[in-house]
C-alpha cells in the first residue's frame, strides 16, 4: 500500500513537471533567443542555449529607438487610466446590486447579464465609436470600447459584497444616519480590499494586453501601445519602413539583429506582467475562480 502510494506520487510529480515545462519552455525560448547574437541565430536558429550571448537587440530597442519607449508610455497611461475607471464604475455598479431591498434590482441584474448573451458585433460597434463619438486615433479609443466594464467583474464584486458584508452592518450605519456614499466609502470598501485588488489586477491585465482596440481604431504610430506595436511589427515590415527602421538603418553600419529584435520586443511586452505576477498570484487565482464559476 505504502509502496504504491509512493509510486503514484512520483508519477504525479513527473506528469506535473512535464506539464509545467510545456507551459514555461516556450517563454524561456523567447527570452534566450532575445539574448542571442544575430550570427548565431542565422546559423542555428532560435535555441534554448545561445552559443553567443549578445545584448545588441535590447540596445537597439531601448537606446537607439524611441518607438518602444513611447509604446510603453502609451500602454502605461492607458492601463492606469482605464483600470481606475473600470474599478470605479464596476464598484459603483456592483454595490447597489448587492443590496437586496433595492427596487429594480432584478432589472439591473438582467441589464448587465444580457450583455454577456448578446452583442452587436464588431461592425455596428466600430461604426458607432468612429462615426458618432469620433474616437478614431485618439487615446480614448484604447480606453473606451469594450474594456471599461465587464459583466464578470460586476458579478464577482456583487457576490463578494453579498457574502462578506453582513447586512446588519449596513443597516446599523444607516440608522446612525450615514449617507449611502459614506457607507460605501467608509464601511464597505475597507472590508473589500481583496476583491478590489483582484478586479484591479484583472482589469489591468486586460488593458495592458489589449491590442484589438489599437488594431481597429488606431493608425497613427504615435498612439501605438506596446501590444499594437508588436502586432504591427510582426505582420508588416513596419519597423523597416517607419521610425524604428530608419533609426536602425541610419545608425552604425552593423548588421541589424532583426531576428533577435523580434524576440526582444516580445520579451519587453510581457516583462511587466511577468514581474508583477509572482507577487499577486493569489489574487489572479481568486479572480479566475470567483469570476467564472460564481458569475
Amino acid at each position, binding site marked *: 500500500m505504502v509502496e504504491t502510494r509512493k509510486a503514484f506520487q512520483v508519477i504525479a510529480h513527473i506528469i506535473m513537471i512535464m506539464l509545467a515545462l510545456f507551459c514555461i519552455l516556450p517563454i524561456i525560448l*523567447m527570452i534566450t533567443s532575445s539574448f542571442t547574437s544575430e550570427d548565431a*541565430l542565422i546559423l542555428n536558429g532560435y535555441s534554448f542555449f545561445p552559443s553567443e550571448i549578445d545584448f545588441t537587440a535590447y540596445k537597439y530597442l531601448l537606446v537607439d529607438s524611441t518607438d518602444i519607449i513611447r509604446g510603453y508610455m502609451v500602454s502605461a497611461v492607458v492601463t492606469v487610466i482605464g483600470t481606475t475607471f473600470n474599478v470605479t464604475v464596476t464598484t459603483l455598479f456592483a454595490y447597489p446590486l448587492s443590496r437586496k431591498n433595492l427596487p429594480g434590482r432584478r432589472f439591473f441584474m438582467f441589464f448587465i447579464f444580457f450583455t454577456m448573451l*448578446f452583442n452587436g458585433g464588431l461592425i*455596428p460597434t466600430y461604426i458607432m465609436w468612429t462615426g458618432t463619438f469620433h474616437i478614431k486615433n485618439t487615446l480614448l479609443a484604447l480606453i473606451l470600447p469594450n474594456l471599461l*466594464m465587464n459583466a464578470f467583474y460586476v458579478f464577482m464584486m456583487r457576490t463578494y459584497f453579498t457574502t462578506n458584508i453582513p447586512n446588519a452592518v449596513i443597516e446599523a450605519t444607516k440608522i446612525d444616519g450615514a449617507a449611502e456614499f459614506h457607507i460605501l466609502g467608509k464601511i464597505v470598501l475597507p472590508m473589500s480590499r481583496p476583491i478590489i485588488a483582484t478586479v484591479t489586477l484583472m482589469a489591468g491585465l486586460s488593458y495592458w*494586453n489589449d491590442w484589438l482596440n489599437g488594431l481597429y481604431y488606431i493608425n497613427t504610430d504615435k498612439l501605438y501601445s506596446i501590444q499594437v506595436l508588436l502586432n504591427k511589427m*510582426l505582420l508588416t515590415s513596419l519597423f523597416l519602413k517607419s521610425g524604428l527602421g530608419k533609426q536602425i538603418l541610419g545608425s552604425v553600419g552593423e548588421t541589424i539583429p532583426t531576428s533577435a529584435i523580434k524576440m526582444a520586443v516580445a520579451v519587453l*511586452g510581457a516583462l511587466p506582467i511577468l514581474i508583477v505576477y509572482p507577487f499577486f498570484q493569489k489574487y489572479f487565482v481568486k479572480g479566475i475562480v470567483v469570476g467564472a464559476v460564481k458569475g
Partner: protein
Amino acid sequence: MNGLTARNNGMSGWEKRMASNIQKLKKIKQFIPLYLMMLPGVLYLIINNYIPMAGIIVAFKQFNYTKGIWGSEFIGFKNFEFLFKSPDSWLITRNTICYNFAFIVIGTIGAIAVAVLLDEIKLPFAKKVYQTIILVPFLISIVIVSYIVYGFLSTETGFINNCILKALGKEPVSWYSSPRYWPFILMIVHEWKWIGYNCILYYATIVGIDKGYYEAAVIDGANRLQKIKYITLPALRPTVIILTLMSIGNIFRSDFGLFYQVPMNSGPLIDVTNTIDTYVYRGLMENSTLGMSSAAGLYQSFVGFVLVLGANLLVRKFDDENALF
C-alpha cells in the same frame, strides 16, 4: 408596521392611497443615491453594448459611411443572400464550430485531469509551484504568443526546423504555408494558453469538496480511482455544466488573435484559419465586402444567442439546479 396601520385607520380611501404613494416615493427616494452610483455603468452599457445591438440593422442595409447606419438604403436580406451563396459562409462556420468543439472537449478533459492530479499531490510547496507556472501562459497576450509561435515555426530561424528536424535528419518545413499542420498547431497553442486557467477553475471546486466524503470512502475500502470516480467527478459536474454551457454559447465566437495573429494572417493558411471573427474583420478593412461581413456578424450574434438559450433550456430540463438562468 403596526403603528402605520393604526394611523391609516382614521383615513378615507383617497387619503390612504395618497399616503401609500407618498410612502412609496419616500422608499424610492431613499434609494436615489444607489441609483446615482449605477448611473455611469448604465450609461456605459447603453453606449458600448445596447446601441450597437440596435446597430445590427446595418446588416439589412447597403451601408454608406457618409449616410451612416440610419441613412443608408434598406436592402432587406440581400447581404445574407450574398453571404450564404458564397463558399466562405460554409467555410467560416465549419472552422469556427469545429475548432471550438475541439477546444471544449480537449480543454475540459485536459483541465479536469490536471486538476485531479494537482489535488493528489501531497507537497504543498510543489503544488503551489505547479499552479503558478501553468497559469503563466494565460497572462501572456496573444500577440506575444504569436511571436513565441514564430520562434518555433519560422522557416529560417525557427526552433523546430533548426533544432528538431535537423537533428532528425529531416527537411525543413515551411510552416506558414502548409495548411495541413495548422489545425493541430492551433489546438496546441490554445491548450497551452488556457490549460492553467481551466485547471484552476476545476481545482477550486475539488478543493471545496467536503473531506468527510473521502474519509468515509476510505473506511468503506475505496481505492484512489474509486474515490475519483464516485466523489471527485460527480462533484465537478455543476462546474463542467456551467463552463460548457458558456462555451456553447460562445461556439460561434473565436479568439480573433489566435486565428489572425498567430498564423500571421498568412494567405495560404486561410482555408483552415478563417473564422467568423476574422472574416468580419477582413470585411471591415475592405469596404467591398462590408455588407456580407455585417450579415456574418449578425448571424454570429443571433445563432450564439439562440444556442445559449437552447443549451440552458436543455440543462434546466434535466438538471434544474445547474442552469445558468
